[in-house]
């Protein structure tokens, strides 16, 4: 009985809207798949899909490698490591909006990077990072911002995994004269696999919903799926197309989750058969 409010709430505010989204996405003047047909016919959709996949494909591996390195470092538990831990976790508290503004502050025409480079005489006029003409640079600024902002998320998960590794394994490795690199390859990384998988899953899901950073820094210079959902809703006033985009994001997310979980499962099964 006490559970009832929670269940009712989730059905009313998650379940019901979800169904509505499907209904919206699948109703159009030109039949059930009309919106999706229209979506595929526009080049924008394919660009948005390509960019979203590209951003995800670049940032997620980068974040993973950085996060593992950071976690190994913090796990050395030197004096003052808890301060470092706090500093690394600061971006966790920041929204994508403020992270975007922070990187705009650095890369703007009169931002710090340009000012410093001009002062040093590296440049003789400011380097532009934003605007339709500079999509390539914009793209890399976005990647950098996302790496800065979301690496701590992966870091926290990996560190939690590291801390749960039984010290005795590593001591045993010392007895056998393993080098640090061997310890990492043969003991730490295999034991970290579940943490790595869940970090990858979460980051991939979130990266696919990337919105704030791109919208603020690039607007529609760089099309992305969530940005298009927003654009179709707020600028074109077409909730049907917006919902179609939302459905695409949700189904890709579902596919990603399924992919990761099935990898995890098959690994577990292999372990069981041994």
């Amino acid at each position: 009985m006490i559970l009832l409010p929670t269940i009712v709430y989730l059905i009313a505010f998650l379940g019901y809207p979800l169904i509505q989204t499907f209904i919206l996405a699948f109703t159009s003047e030109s039949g059930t798949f009309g919106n999706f047909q229209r979506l595929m016919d526009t080049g924008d959709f394919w660009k948005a899909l390509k960019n979203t996949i590209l951003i995800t494909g670049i940032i997620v591996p980068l974040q993973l490698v950085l996060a593992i390195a950071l976690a190994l470092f913090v796990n050395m538990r030197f004096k003052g490591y808890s301060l470092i831990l706090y500093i690394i976790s600061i971006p966790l508290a920041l929204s994508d909006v403020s992270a975007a503004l922070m990187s705009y502050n650095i890369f703007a025409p009169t931002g710090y990077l340009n000012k410093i480079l001009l002062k040093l005489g590296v440049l003789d006029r400011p380097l532009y990072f934003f605007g339709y003409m500079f999509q390539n640079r914009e793209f890399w600024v976005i990647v950098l911002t996302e790496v800065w902002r979301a690496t701590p998320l992966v870091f926290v998960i990996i560190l939690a995994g590291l801390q749960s590794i039984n010290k005795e394994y590593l001591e045993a490795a010392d007895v056998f004269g393993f080098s640090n690199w061997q310890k990492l390859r043969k003991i730490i990384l295999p034991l970290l696999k579940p943490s790595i998988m869940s970090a990858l899953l979460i980051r991939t899901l979130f990266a696919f919903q990337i919105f704030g950073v791109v919208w603020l820094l690039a607007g529609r210079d760089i099309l992305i799926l969530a940005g298009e959902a927003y654009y179709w809703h707020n600028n074109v006033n077409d909730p049907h197309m917006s919902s179609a985009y939302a459905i695409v994001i949700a189904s890709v997310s579902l596919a990603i989750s399924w992919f990761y979980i099935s990898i995890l499962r098959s690994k577990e099964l292999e372990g069981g058969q041994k």
Partner: protein
Amino acid sequence: MIKKVFIVFVSILVIVWFLTPVVLIVLASLTPSEDYYNQNRILPRKLTLDHLYKLFVVLNGWRATLNSLQVAGMAIGLSFLTGLPAGYVLTRYVFPGKNAIRLSILLTRSFPTLIIAVPLIMIYLKLGISDTLFSVALAHTSFILPFVVLITTSILSGISVEYEEAGMIFGLSRFGAFMRITLPLALPGLAASAIFAFIMSWNEVFISSILTFVNRTLPAQILNTAMTSPDYFKFAAGTIMAIPAMTFIFFTRKYLMSMWGISLK
């Protein structure tokens, strides 16, 4: 010795990498505009609260901030009111379908929440609460509530039932035992999760900007006005958004690992 040098070196690298953007945006928000637009001036000659003041008072930033606070407050209230009892039941009772319920609550977390934003407008229009702060709070509750249920489940399962049972032997009702024994014990953890819930709502931008036009929350307001306003206002806005979140997370840093562990599951 080499190890020590290595640690200091990497620590400095980490600190510079993670703190520079934060320090610079605060600095930029305090820089007078003539110094900001002067290419030859990296550090300002003096600091000014002008931009923050203008954004906050003259441009009604305080209203958006107040809106954000109200939305977060309502969402936290709603989530805990419904989520805390649910978490309690999930830890203390055994009943059929318990695992199915836990699992489905977990599942809601892996769903992109932006998908519910569009139909919610129509539902709110029918209910006559469109473009209100309450409607945004309701939407935020839909992703904060599962987090609250999961986190209270884990906090409460860390508190032994035996304390409660002892209390009940001495004549407390189950509710009384919960209020007077378990709740005080769980309070620090619950406070930390409330702060996390606050940050989730405070930072959420997609749903807020779709659901509101007049009564915008701070991130929604920034998203829709920032890029057309002068640079120094952007940085003032970024600073206003960042400072509360950073302060709050400082107080909960002890709980950081367990919170994120759960909020992401």
